[in-house]
C-alpha cells in the first residue's frame, strides 16, 4: 500500500466523518427525533389544555398544565399570562404581578397582559400605573373593548366620572351590545339624576339579555323619577313576576301608588313586601308614613320604631319618628329622635326644622332659633344645588 492510498483512505474517512457529523446535526437519531416530536407535541398540549381548564374554572389543574408548559425549553408568554390570571383570582397579588410582568418581557406586544396588569394595579389603588397599563394595551390593540371598559371602571372608582362615561360610551361604540357598559352607564346617569339616559341604557340591557328582576326594579326607579309612573309600575310588576319574593319591587310599587294618592293599593303592596320580608325597612317606613298621612299615629309610630330597630342608621326613619312624636305632642321623644337623626346625618335639613318646631313648643326660644337658622342655611344650599341642574318647572 503506498502513501497515496493511505492518504486517500484518510480523506475518505474525514469526509465520511464530516458527513456523519453534519447528519447528526440536522437529523436526530430515530429515537431522539421521535422523542423530540413527542416533546413538541406535549408542549402544545399543556398550554392549550391549561387554557381549557382555566376557562372551565379548574384553576389548580390549569396551573399544573401551565407549569408543565413552562418546563419546556421554549418560554411562553401566554403561559405566564394565564398563570398571572390564576394568581389574580387567588388573590396572590405579587405573584400575579410577577407573572404578568414576565409575560410582557417575553412578548411586549401582548395587549392582554397590559390589560390584566392594569386591573391588578387598579385593585391596589395604584391608579397612575393602572392607567398607564390600560393605555398601553389600547395602543397595542385598537378597539380593545375590554381595556376601555376596565379603564372606565378605574376612572369610576377614582370618581373621574366624565372620563368613565367616555370610556363606557366608547365600549358601546365598539360593541353596541356590551351589557356591562350599559349597566355601568345606567348607574352613573342615575347617580347624576340624568334619569332619561339611565333608563335608555337599562332598556338596552333588558333588550339584550334576560335581565334579572333587579334590572326591572332599577328601570322602574328611573321611570318613577321621570314621573312616568305607569311605566314605573309596569317594571316593578315585571320584577315581581320574575321574582315574587323581591320585597324591594313590592315596596316600590307601594311607594308609587302612595305618590299617586292611591292609598289602598299602596297599603296592599307595602303589606305584601313586609309579608315577604319583614325586615324590609323601605316598606315598613313608607307604610308608617302612609299611616302618618292618614293621621293614624299609633300605627305610624309602631312601624317607624320597628324600622329604626331593624336599621339604626336609617336617618329618614328617625326623622319621621320625630315628626310623629311632634304631631302627637310627645315633645321630649321628638327632640330625642330628631337629634339622633342629625347625629347620623348632620346636614339633614328637615330635622333642623322639626327640632326648631319642637323647641318652640317647649318654649326653648334660643334652641328653636338656633335650629331654624341651621335649617335655613341647609335649605339655601339645597336650593343652590337644584339651581345648578337647570331643572324644568
Amino acid at each position, binding site marked *: 500500500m503506498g502513501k497515496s492510498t493511505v492518504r486517500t483512505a484518510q480523506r475518505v474517512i474525514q469526509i465520511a466523518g464530516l458527513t456523519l457529523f453534519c447528519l447528526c446535526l440536522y437529523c436526530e437519531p430515530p429515537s431522539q427525533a421521535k422523542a423530540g416530536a413527542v416533546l413538541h407535541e406535549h408542549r402544545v398540549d399543556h398550554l392549550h389544555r391549561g387554557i381549557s381548564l382555566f376557562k372551565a374554572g379548574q384553576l389548580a389543574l390549569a396551573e399544573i398544565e401551565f407549569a408543565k408548559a413552562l418546563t419546556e425549553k421554549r418560554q411562553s408568554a401566554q403561559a405566564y399570562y394565564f398563570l398571572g390570571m390564576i394568581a389574580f383570582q387567588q388573590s396572590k397579588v405579587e405573584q400575579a404581578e410577577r407573572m404578568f410582568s414576565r409575560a410582557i418581557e417575553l412578548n411586549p406586544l401582548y395587549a392582554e397582559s397590559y390589560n390584566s396588569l392594569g386591573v391588578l394595579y387598579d385593585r391596589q389603588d395604584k391608579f397612575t400605573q393602572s392607567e398607564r397599563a390600560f393605555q398601553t394595551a389600547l395602543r397595542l390593540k385598537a378597539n380593545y373593548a375590554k381595556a376601555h371598559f376596565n379603564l372606565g371602571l378605574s376612572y369610576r372608582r377614582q370618581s373621574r366620572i366624565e372620563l368613565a362615561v367616555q370610556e363606557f360610551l366608547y365600549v358601546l361604540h365598539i360593541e353596541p351590545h356590551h351589557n356591562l357598559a350599559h349597566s355601568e352607564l345606567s348607574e352613573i346617569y342615575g347617580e347624576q*339624576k*340624568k*334619569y*332619561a339616559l339611565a333608563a335608555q341604557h337599562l332598556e338596552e340591557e333588558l333588550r339584550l339579555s334576560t335581565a334579572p328582576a333587579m334590572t326591572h326594579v332599577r328601570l322602574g326607579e328611573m321611570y318613577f323619577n*321621570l*314621573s*312616568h*309612573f*305607569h*311605566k314605573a309600575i309596569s317594571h316593578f310588576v315585571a320584577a315581581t313576576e320574575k321574582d315574587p319574593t323581591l320585597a324591594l319591587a313590592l315596596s316600590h310599587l307601594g311607594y308609587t301608588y302612595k*305618590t*299617586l*294618592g292611591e*292609598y289602598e293599593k299602596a297599603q296592599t303592596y307595602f303589606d305584601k313586601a313586609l309579608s315577604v320580608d319583614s325586615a324590609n325597612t323601605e316598606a315598613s317606613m313608607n307604610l308608617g308614613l302612609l299611616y*302618618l*298621612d*292618614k*293621621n293614624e299615629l299609633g300605627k305610624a309610630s309602631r312601624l317607624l320604631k320597628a324600622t329604626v330597630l331593624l336599621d339604626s342608621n336609617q336617618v329618614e326613619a328617625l326623622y319621621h319618628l320625630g*315628626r310623629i312624636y311632634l*304631631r302627637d305632642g310627645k315633645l321630649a321623644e321628638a327632640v330625642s329622635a330628631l337629634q339622633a337623626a342629625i347625629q347620623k346625618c348632620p346636614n339633614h*335639613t*328637615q330635622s*333642623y*326644622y*322639626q327640632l*326648631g*318646631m319642637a323647641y*318652640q313648643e317647649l318654649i326653648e326660644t334660643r334652641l*328653636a332659633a338656633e335650629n*331654624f337658622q341651621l*335649617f335655613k342655611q341647609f*335649605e339655601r344650599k339645597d*336650593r343652590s344645588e*337644584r*339651581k345648578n*341642574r*337647570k*331643572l*324644568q*318647572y
Partner: protein
Amino acid sequence: MEKVSRLHAIRVSESVGFGRITFLFRLVRSFRTSRLASFWLVASVWLFLVQTVADADRYQSPINFVDVSAQAGIHFTHTNGASGEKYLVETMGGGGGFLDYDNDGLLDIYLVNGGPLPGFKSNQRLRNALYRNQGDGSFRDTTEEAGVSGNGYGMGTAAADYDNDGFVDLFVTNFGLNTLYHNNGNGTFSDVTARAGVQGDGGWATSAGFFDHNNDGFLDLFVCYYLDFDLDHNVRCGEHYRKGFRSYCHPDQYPGLSNKLYRNNHDGTFTDVSKTAGIANLEGKGLGVVLADLDDDGFTDIYVANDSVANFLYHNNGNGTFTDVGLISGTAYNENGEAQAGMGTDISDSNGDGRPDILVTNLDFEGATLYQNNTKGSFTDVSFPSGLAEATLRFVGFGTRFVDFDNDGDQDIFIANGHVIDNIEQVSDTIKYLQPKLLLENRKGRFVNMSKQLGPALVSPSAGRGLAIGDYDNDGDIDFLVMNCNQPPNLLQNQGGNQNHWITIKLVGLLGNRDGIGAKVHVVAGRMTQRQQVKGGMSYLSMHDPRLNFGLGKAEKVDLIEVHWPNRDVDRVRDVNSNQIVTIRESQGLAKDPREKR
C-alpha cells in the same frame, strides 16, 4: 234648559218611587191568602229595593255648574304671546275677576290678557277686556268706552274704592309697569298710575290686593312680585331630562323680587313704604296674597304664597310695620319642613272654630296645603288629615277660594288647576297639561272631591290660572270665573246652590274705607254661627265679589248679623229674612239698596 230638564228628571224618579209603593200596598192586600201571593210579595219587595238602589246610583247632586261663557257673550281668549322660546312669563297668566264698576248692583267682569313676546307672530291686538253685566245673563264688551284695555303684558287685578268716592277703581299688575285706573263714576276710567305712584319699577308683578294696613280709613295697596326675570337673559331648561328637550324653567333659576306696600296718602297718591313697613324681602317669589286679620287683633295681616321658597306671614304690628312670623307660626313650609310651589291662597274658617285658616295651592305631588289656626299664633298643617292633600296630589293648583257652594253653612274649596309645562306629556305618562277643576265639599272638616257629581263643566280640563268667585246673577249661590292660560275663560254658573237658605251682605263703610275691607261679620242663624271677614287679595291674580255670602242650610231667617268695623265700631242687625242681599252701612245698620237686582 239643562236646569229645567234636571228638575224634571228628579220629579219623574220620585213619582216612579211613589207609584211602586202604591202598587206594593195593593199587592199585599190582594195576595194575603195565597202562597203565590207570598212569592210575588217577596219578589216585588226585592225588585223595589234593587231599583231604588239603582236610582240612587244614578242620582246626581241637585247642584250643577254650567259653563255659560259663550251664551253670556264673553268672547275673550287669553293670549300668552308665546314664540317657542319658553319665556316663563308665558305660562303664568292670566287673571281677572268680578267688580261692579257702574254700581248697578250687578257684577261685571274684567279679564287680563298677555302681550306679544319676542318672536310672537300675530297681527291681533292683545288687550284686556271689560264686560258689563246686562242683568239678563249676558255681558257686553265695554272695554274701549271704559278706557281699560291695558298696556303691556298683563298678569292680575285688584279692585277697590281707594279714594272712597263710591266707585270701585281698578289696579292691573303687569310683567312691566303696573296700571291704576280711577273710576270716573260715569262708566269710564282714567289711567292715574303716574300720579298715584304705583307703577312699580318694571319688574314682574303678580297678585295684588287693597287693604287698610294702618286703619286710617283709606285703602292701601299690596303688590306681589315674583322673579327677577328678563327676556334678554332667558335660561334654557329641560336638557337634563333629554337632549333637545326644552321646557319652562323652574323658578330656582331666577332670583326673587321684593313685594311692595303702597300707603294711601288720602289725596289720590301713594307712597312706597315697603322698607319702613318691613315687607321688603328679596327672598320671596310672590304669586298669591291674601290680606286678612289672622289673630283677631284688629289689624290686617298679610299672607304671601311664594313659589318654591318659604311663604311669608307678615303680622301687622299695629304701628305701620310688619314682622314675618311665617317660620315660627308653621305657615312658611309644609309639615315636613319643605317649601312648596305656593301659587294661590285664601283664608277662612274651615273647621268652624271661629279662627281663620290658610289655604295654599301647590304643584302636583305636593298637594294643596291647609294650615289650621291654633291659638297662640301657631298653625298646624292638616293637609293630609283633612283629605285635601290626597284629593289634590295629581294636580297643579293655581287660583283657589274657600266658598260655600251649596249654602250648607260650611266652607268648601274650589281650585282652578292646570300644569305649568305645556309639553309635560312628553316627559310624563301620568300628568296632563290641561286639568279639571276641583270642587271639594267640606264634610265636617274632611274635604271630598265632588267635581264629577256637579256637572261636566267642572271636569272639563283646562290650563286654569286665575279664579274669581261671585254671585253674578244675584240668585244667592256663588258662581265661578276661571281664567285659563292661552284659552278662553270659563264662567261657571251655579245652578241649584240656592236650594238651601242664604244671605248675602254688602258692607258700606262711612268712617272707615267705603268697601268695608277689614270688617268682620258674625252671622247667627239657629244653632249656626259663622264668621267671615272682608278680605283683600285672595286666590291668584284675581278679584272677587266684595259681598259676603253666608249659607244658612235650613234656617229661614238670620237671628243676628254683627259687623265689627275696622275702627272697632260694632253694628248689630237682628231678625233678617234669609234669601236676600242686604246692605249694612256703618253706624246706620240695614239699608235697602234699590240697585241690587235679581
